[in-house]
């Protein structure tokens, strides 16, 4: 299994997640009783790997419990309890890894979470917990005892780099495009990516390799760009969504003001949108599609780095209301527009010009039926003007 073979052996071999590694190392080396770390992140981003690699590097033993173990109060106590409370004289140091704690479920693990919380208090060794979703209510108590470290979902580029590394080591000759395709399909899951690569090397067709998840949605992209400042994440922020850049701009236009409460951040973010729009205009005029690359730079890194501080907390993003308003206005103003069009053809100019320069001045005069009929208005339209 390549996914085992290429597990990182020390922190230098870890792809992405640099800051998390540093913090984790610090925590283990300078361990203070009563603290613990909860590593959070989607499955396959390398939470467990990280702990193993670090332990190996620091020469520590790992005491691991994972989802396959039954975790009730008694068992936890008998397996971990004693060894946690005693420093052994001869053995090396230890790290206690409680893997996939969101697997703790009602019946089998009754009392597990609270027991763990209690253990954290008394443990002589650094304790590390991993979870996919730290926001579950059953983890609420445990969470308050731990420092939360998020292992970010790697961008497809990071995944691709890993795949490149593995395929080079295995002496495979795989085109860059294919690697990119594999990386995109893995959707941030290193394990899936490597397994796919191995199946490919074993002769599978790329089309048979399942896409890991449906493609990302715009909400995730917005969260990446509007909340964070991590350029690595932001550069590929819109790669995985099925949405054309024009729509992305509308989503940003709608949601930037909800997030960027600092006025300078707001102005700078809109400056980026404004620049993107200029390039959009140039593309449509000259059909010079290379400008698209700059548009994505503005919409990703440009908007993300417009802020001085990261924004925390939950923000409800929503779709653009502008398109809806335009449509409503079109319905509401249909009568006015049809009148304007008739005036336009009567006075030899465009509807747009009539709306600006003629309609506001003539709408009173046109309530006179003789004049209205001369221009070609029908009774409905005359009544509309009389209102």
């Amino acid at each position, binding site marked *: 299994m390549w996914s085992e073979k290429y597990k990182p052996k020390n922190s230098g071999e870890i792809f992405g997640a640099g800051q998390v590694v540093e913090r984790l190392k610090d925590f283990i080396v300078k361990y203070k009783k009563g603290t613990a770390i909860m590593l959070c992140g989607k499955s396959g981003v390398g939470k467990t790997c990280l702990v193993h690699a670090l332990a190996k590097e620091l020469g520590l033993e790992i005491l691991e419990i994972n989802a396959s173990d039954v975790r009730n109060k008694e068992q936890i106590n008998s397996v971990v309890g004693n060894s946690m409370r005693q420093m052994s004289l001869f053995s090396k140091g230890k790290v206690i890894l409680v893997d996939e704690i969101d697997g703790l479920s009602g019946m089998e693990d009754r009392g597990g979470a609270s027991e763990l919380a209690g253990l954290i208090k008394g443990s002589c060794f650094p304790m590390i917990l991993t979870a996919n979703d730290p926001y579950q209510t059953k983890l609420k108590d445990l969470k308050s005892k731990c420092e939360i470290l998020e292992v970010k979902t790697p961008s497809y580029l990071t995944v691709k780099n890993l795949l490149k590394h593995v395929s080079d080591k295995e002496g495979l000759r795989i085109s860059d495009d294919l690697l990119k395709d594999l990386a995109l399909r893995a959707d941030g899951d290193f394990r899936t990516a490597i397994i796919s690569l191995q199946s490919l090397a074993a002769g599978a067709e790329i089309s048979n390799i399942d896409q890991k998840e449906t493609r990302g949605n715009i909400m995730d992209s917005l969260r990446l760009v509007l909340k964070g400042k991590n350029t690595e994440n932001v550069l590929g922020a819109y790669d995985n969504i099925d949405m054309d850049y024009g729509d992305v701009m509308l989503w940003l236009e709608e949601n930037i003001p909800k997030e960027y409460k600092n*006025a300078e951040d707001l102005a700078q973010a*809109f400056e980026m949108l404004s*620049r993107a729009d200029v390039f959009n205009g140039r593309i449509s005029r000259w059909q010079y599609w290379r400008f698209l690359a700059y548009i994505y730079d503005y919409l990703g890194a440009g908007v993300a780095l417009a802020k001085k501080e990261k924004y925390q907390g939950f923000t409800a993003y929503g779709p653009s209301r502008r398109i809806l308003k335009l449509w409503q206005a079109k319905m509401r103003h249909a009568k006015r527009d049809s009148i304007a069009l008739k005036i336009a053809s009567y006075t*030899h100019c*465009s509807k747009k010009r009539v709306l600006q*320069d003629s309609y506001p001045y003539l709408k009173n005069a046109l309530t006179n039926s003789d004049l209205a009929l001369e221009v070609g208005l029908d009774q409905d339209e005359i009544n509309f003007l009389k209102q």
Partner: protein
Amino acid sequence: MMEIWTEKYRPKEFEDIAGQEDIIKRVSSFVKSKNMPHLMFSGPAGVGKTTLSLIVAKKLFGEEWNSNFLELNASDERGIDVVRNKVKDFARTKTMGNYPFKVIYLDECDSLTKEAQQALRRTMENYVNSCRFILSCNYSSKIIDPIQSRCAIFRFKPLEKKHIVKQVENIAKGEGLTINSDAYDAIYAVTEGDARRVANILQDCASMTKDISAETIYEKVAAARPQEVNKILTIAVSGDFIKSRDMLLDMMLRYGLSGLDVIKQIHKEIWNLKIEDSKKVKLLDKCGEIEFRMVEGSDEFLQLEALLANFTI
């Protein structure tokens, strides 16, 4: 009979068109010789481009002008395909009477994209034996070179105050209006030399009184123009961006305003805001930059939002 004054007082003869003497001389000589190249009229709104085209058609074709003259507006006809099909249908039929060609007047050509202009250029070539084009635009720089090189180009000058005064006097005579002396300045100021607006505003004023003063003019113009701009900017300055942009969009939709109309008004209102003068200067600078980007970009409202965001700082 009641009429719309822009039409009632639209010049009918070459020599009635004010302020474009050189152009009139050359164009009328084309008409006299019954032969002409494609023409391009460029210049600001309301200086006589359409009027001159209509006179050309009427002089060339006399009674049959209507069937030998096709008037299209590039900003109203959706897409170049509509233009092409209409031109095709028009050009295919024989000219009514014994004339060597028909005339197609295509207004507001600068609203066409570059590709649409390329298509237009092909169309002009295809029908060169049976049709002459008169293209009209505000800025000839927005027209691609191959089209410009196929046309005799005429640049219309903005109308001066004396031309507007003459037009007002002419309408006043026809309608029995008295115009106060201060009203002339007012009309020139609010219309910026656009003869179409002069006729429209006068007609609106006359529906209220035959005795027209500067106040009447300003009152009518104010009623026709949205008054919300100052309020929208003030709300932005107070920091409520979302509310101010929603109001801006509502105003634009209600009055059917273009981005350019709005930015002109914002430009005027900056001085009336209660903020430091140094900040006003910064905003003016931004205003100019955004107007420039509006011409280059594709989404006018987005550009206005970018400007509005600067008011919140």
